[in-house]
Structure formats: C-alpha cells, structure tokens
C-alpha cells in the first residue's frame, strides 16, 4: 500500500518523539507509547525469528517493561548510578502498511550512552509495528537488531 507523505511523516514524528522521551528520561510517557499487548524485543542472534526457543537480550511484555520503567525512575540501581545520558538517533526510516491502520517502520539507529566518563555506542536497525489509536500510534512490537547482538556486552540499561 502506497502511503501518503502525511502518513509517513506522522510515523516519523512518532519515532522521533519516542527517541526524545527516552533521551529526556520520560520513561513513563515512553511506556504509554506501547499497546497493552505490546512487546519490546532485542534478539541475541542476527536474523532471529524465534523468541520462544532462542534466548533474547530483551523480550519484554508490558508488565516487565513497566517494572523496567519503575527501576529506571527509582534511581537506586547501581548500574544506573549515575544515570546515563543518552542520544537516540534514528535515520533511513521506511514506512509500509499491509492493513488499514497498521504500519511497519524500519529504520537505522545509532545510540550513544554516556555514564561516568565512559561512552558506549550501539548501532543497528529497528522495526516498529504500529497500530493507530486515538489520532496517534501504539507500538505492538519493537524489534531492535543490534549489529553486535551476538557479541559480548556490558550491561545495557536504557531501552534503545
């Protein structure tokens, strides 16, 4: 389905807003972007299609994401002390739609995290499955494919 420029722009702005909320530490508002059945998925293998039989770096439903948000806002966890400062950069956004009010946005990302004098850079592509709700969208699935998903990692704390 060919999308109008307006619809594409709407999806782009939604993604940019998500990035802005994460960078601003507005995690509660970030969680509200997710549908009640929404899932955040960061696979551990390139091209991973199965989250049931293969371990993931993150496979979190709304309840677990809510726990993560509480933890992010508590400012007590050692790994979040001091709180990391972040930049979520999104580019090369492509939006498609196979069904009314359902959109898939594929994009490249660069994510920079700074904490206590040290900086980590993550990159890759992420895919948002969006459904239209009340004039905006809700995330049904966000799949974050890190370039080095199968590599060794230091703790990852802020959602990418």
């Amino acid at each position: 389905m060919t999308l109008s420029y307006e619809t594409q722009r709407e999806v782009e702005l939604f993604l940019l807003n998500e990035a802005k909320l994460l960078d601003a530490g507005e995690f509660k508002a970030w969680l509200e972007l997710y549908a009640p059945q929404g899932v955040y998925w960061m696979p551990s293998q390139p091209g991973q299609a199965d989250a049931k039989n293969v371990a993931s770096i993150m496979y979190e439903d709304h309840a677990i994401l809510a726990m993560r948000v509480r933890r992010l806002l508590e400012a007590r966890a050692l790994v979040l002390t001091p709180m990391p400062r972040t930049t979520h950069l999104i580019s090369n956004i492509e939006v498609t739609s196979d069904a009314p009010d359902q959109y898939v946005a594929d994009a490249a990302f660069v994510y920079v995290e700074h904490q206590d004098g040290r900086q980590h850079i993550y990159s890759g592509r992420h895919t948002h499955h969006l459904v239209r709700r009340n004039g905006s969208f809700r995330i049904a699935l966000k799949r974050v494919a890190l370039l080095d998903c199968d590599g060794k990692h230091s703790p990852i704390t802020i959602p990418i």
Partner: protein
Amino acid sequence: MTNFYKKGVLVNEEQDPVVRRYKAMLVERFGCEQAAAVLGMNRFNNIIYPNLIINAQHQQMRVTIPLAVDLTLIRFYCFRLKGAPDEMFHRAIRFLSTSGSPASMISSDDIEMLERCQRGLVKKASPWVNFARGADSDRRDSDGTVGGAASELPMRVQFEAWVNYLTQ
C-alpha cells in the same frame, strides 16, 4: 518471572498445570520415591567451585571466565530437561533473557558491582579485602558450614579451597 523463588519452592508451583504435568511424568517414569527425591532438592544456586553456577530449578547455568586480570567474561546458558514439557524450556529461555542477559534487571547490578570492585582493587588503597561479614554466625552441621542470607561464607570457603590447592 512471576513464579519466582520463595522459600525454596516456586510460588504457585502446585497450581501450575505445566509443573503438575512434569511431576506426573517424573512419577510415571521413576516412581513416587525417586521423583520426590529429585524434586525435593531445595536449592536455588549451586556453586561448583571455582566458576560454575547451576540453577536446576530454572534450568540455568552461569560460567565466570577470567580473560585477564581486569577482564572477565560471564556466560549464561539454559538447558532443556530431557522429556519435560516444551513449556518448561520456553520458560527457561524467558528466565535466561530476564535474569542473564546484558539487559537483565537482575544480574546487571551484580556485574556492575564486579566491575566497580575491580576498579577499586586497582587503586591499591587497601591491601586487604574484608570477607568477614557473617563469620560470627556461621554454624557447622553434618553437611558442612551454613551461613545466613547476607553472609560472605561462599567467598570465604572458595578462598579457603583456593589456598588449599595452592599449598597442598
């Protein structure tokens, strides 16, 4: 993760149809007595000296691999219980993602602590690391030495073992 550890048993375990099915399969295969013995082992993490931790209850395994004096790799695995319902393996996978991944809300603080301890050791401010916590409340029984929840007994016995290997 809702069925988390509580006093050595899984909360809701009795009501859980998957666990009930697993228990029934064990009983059918090994008989009541042996099944009870297998399920009765009431431990969470089993530390196999020097660097392996096995959690049979959630089918998890963790290996600590020192790569250099200031670099440690920690690998998490989960395993399938042969013949057990597939759902149990799916749960083990979920548990691994939740408890052992780099993004885990459970282990990432532990790993951060390990890293910060290492950074502290580099400073050489103190020549000693104090592992005395709980030493006054350790008690010996026929199985060995037992310590309280926050006791540093596991560290003490591992270093004792290490000293023994070095000096034997």
